[in-house]
């Protein structure tokens, strides 16, 4: 790939270094803590599943009963109960859902528990490896039918069965990727709902069963179309790590997963989020799931022109946290968006600069490019023109994961023909300018080149400030998206626990070992 922006390598390296320095103390904090949902995720890896009659998930029941023992890790008790009772996993889950309290059972020999942990984790890892192999196989089998950038479409009916219809249609229309949008505010639930659901608002509950239903529908259409259709959901909110586990098991291919999104945009406690994102990312890394970060949210919240540099700063931090969780670059879909006020003179050049800059600073990352949304109005024709320019920019700068803009963005969640029109637009534009990227160069010191350099400079400024202030305190001061969050405030704060000396989490140990070896 040829660089066109003449960005200084030194500056880029400096920016990366700053991001590293920013995350280092946070990573230390992360390594020293666990959370409710990290524990529940580990339990899910071991097999915990199901709900009680009130719909409370088994992992939640377990962790609740072990509230006071959290600092020692919860896995030991779950396995202990299994061995002690001589249960199979389903029997154990059943017993717990019927009231069995695993915290009360006397602990047996640690060796046996560890052996059993290895066995259970082995089951899990076999399953995940099978998934990974299957996915890789299908992707290479059908690779010639893949679009570049990949076309990403959403479904958001709130009903998993209706979603399946919409998703199948989108796949037939030519989508590479289907994201099932999650119901409003699921991110604030401190448990993962169970079973097939039909009652979401502007999105469908992320449940393991819903994942399974959609995965199987998409596998079907993949075979019909000779085109592997990737499935996306949200590994985000108060249950990030658990959803990562569910996604790994059900072979999701991508996950929205951001190191700071929950803090800033959902008022989830920052300590909690940092710990959760790390664990969830290790799972994603193991399952080779591409994460998509949420920098686009900065631009829908603040002004996209003025705050462009916050996107870059956040990308660098996200990338660094991802690296800490052993995610290889190819699995880190850094987010950004085309959302500058379209009435600004040369706004298109500014978008081009930003997209090209991301491409050049992150050459090995699959960039996730979000469409215009904030300035979309009910004039669906105008939206279609904006989306045309967006499609152009994505192809012109070689983006990887291209979220299609929908002409009815300001009106409703997409209708079946809205997606068709979106794909049709993208395919037309991208084919008509397929080799544009290789064809053009930017003027030295022109608007585009200068803008990219300016954004990089500003991002470095911000990162320096954050480094000096410390990430926790920077967020308290509102350095990101003008949003201020207290270190000890926000949702889920009480779910954090400092790991004790005797803390044991075989899943974490396994992941760390696996991932640092590979």
């Amino acid at each position: 790939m040829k660089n066109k922006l003449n960005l200084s390598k030194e500056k880029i390296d400096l920016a990366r270094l700053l991001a590293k320095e920013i995350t280092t103390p946070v990573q230390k904090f992360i390594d020293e803590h666990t959370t409710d949902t990290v524990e529940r995720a580990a339990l899910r890896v071991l097999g915990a599943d199901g709900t009680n009659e009130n719909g409370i998930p088994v992992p939640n029941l377990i962790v609740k009963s072990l509230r006071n023992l959290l600092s020692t890790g919860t896995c030991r008790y779950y396995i202990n109960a299994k061995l002690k009772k001589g249960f199979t996993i389903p029997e154990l889950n059943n017993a717990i859902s019927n009231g069995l309290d695993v915290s009360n059972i006397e602990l047996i020999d640690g060796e046996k528990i560890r052996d059993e942990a290895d066995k259970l984790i082995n089951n899990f890892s076999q399953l995940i490896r099978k998934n990974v192999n299957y996915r890789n196989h299908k992707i290479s089998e059908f690779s010639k039918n893949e679009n570049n950038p990949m076309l990403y479409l959403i479904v958001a009916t709130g009903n998993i069965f209706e979603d399946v219809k919409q998703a199948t249609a989108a796949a037939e229309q030519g989508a590479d990727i289907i994201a099932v949008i999650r119901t409003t505010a699921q991110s604030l639930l401190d448990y993962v709902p169970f079973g097939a659901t039909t009652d979401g608002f502007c999105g469908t509950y992320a449940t393991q069963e819903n994942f399974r239903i959609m995965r199987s529908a998409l596998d079907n259409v993949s075979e019909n179309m000779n085109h592997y259709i990737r499935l996306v959901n949200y590994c985000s909110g108060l249950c990030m790590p658990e959803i990562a586990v569910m996604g790994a098991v059900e072979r999701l291919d991508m996950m929205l997963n951001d190191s700071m999104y929950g803090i800033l945009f959902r008022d989830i406690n920052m300590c909690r989020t940092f710990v959760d994102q790390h664990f969830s990312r290790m799972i994603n890394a193991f399952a080779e799931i591409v994460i998509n970060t949420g920098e686009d949210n900065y631009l829908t919240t603040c002004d996209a022109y003025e705050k462009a540099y916050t996107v870059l700063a956040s990308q660098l931090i996200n990338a660094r946290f991802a690296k800490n969780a052993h995610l290889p670059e190819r699995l880190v879909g850094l987010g950004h968006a085309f959302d500058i006020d379209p009435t600004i003179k040369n706004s298109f050049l500014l978008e081009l600069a930003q997209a090209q800059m991301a491409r050049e600073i992150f050459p090995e990352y699959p960039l996730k490019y979000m469409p215009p949304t904030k300035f979309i109005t009910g004039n669906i024709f105008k939206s279609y023109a904006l989306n045309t320019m967006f499609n152009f920019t994505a192809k012109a700068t070689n983006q990887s994961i291209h979220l299609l803009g929908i002409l009815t963005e300001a009106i409703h969640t997409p209708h079946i023909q809205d997606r068709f029109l979106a794909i049709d637009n993208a395919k037309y534009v991208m084919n008509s300018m397929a080799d544009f990227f290789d064809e053009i160069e930017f003027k030295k010191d022109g608007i585009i080149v200068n803008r990219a350099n300016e954004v990089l400079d500003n991002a470095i400024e911000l990162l320096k400030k954050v480094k000096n202030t410390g990430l926790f305190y920077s967020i308290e001061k509102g350095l990101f998206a003008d949003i201020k969050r207290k270190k000890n405030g926000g949702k889920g704060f009480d779910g954090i626990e400092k790991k004790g000396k005797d803390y044991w989490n075989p899943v974490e140990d396994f992941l760390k070992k696996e991932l640092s070896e590979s």
Partner: protein
Amino acid sequence: MFIRPYGDTLNDGQVQLSFTLPVEKSEKATEAARFFVRKLGFESCEIVHSEAICRGFTFFLAYGTSNIEIDYDKVEVESPAGELCWSFEEINNFIKEKIKREIVVVAACTGSDAHTVCLDAIMNMKGFNHHYGLERYPMIKAHNLGAQVENIDLIEFAIRVKADAILVSQVVTQKDIHIKNMTMLIKLLNDKGVRNNFILVVGGPKIDNKLATELGFDAGFGKGTYAEHVGTFIARELYNRGKP
């Protein structure tokens, strides 16, 4: 089977509309737009956009929810003239074997209409979208008189070359000029008493078989027609008439 428009849920009846009202943009204008959509029979209506597009005119975009269902099984469709469609070879073989002589076809874009490409798509050697035109058919002698041909000249030419079929193309349709044109052709043919000497075919983007046959043509062909459709129709019709 009863069907309704579909947005994202079966039978949700979602329809998108846009139109302009000759009034200044205002809350009242928007209300009038909503009222109009409701009066069209939509159960509910959301005006999703309104914009003053010039003095005295406002453009509206709306989504309506319709309860109207249609019984799909009862929808009747005039079987289009081009329904049966043989291949290039099949047509030639059919003519060779059943009609046993070259068919003569005369075509023109009549009246003031000058859209030659539309007729050329059917006639020219090269054809259209990789479908050869009638000129390329060994068993068809095809005369393309081009555009802006007077009806009377077309008829006289057809009589002179003893045409089996006359093909007319009509693309311009504003103020129903094509209907006048087509009606006049039929009248002239009748006046001369030669209407039944020819298979009479008309085509164009706004033509369909129903309109054509109502006006007295034997067939009408719309968008997406290829020479094969017309070739098949003429060959078969000629054979059916026992003319060979």
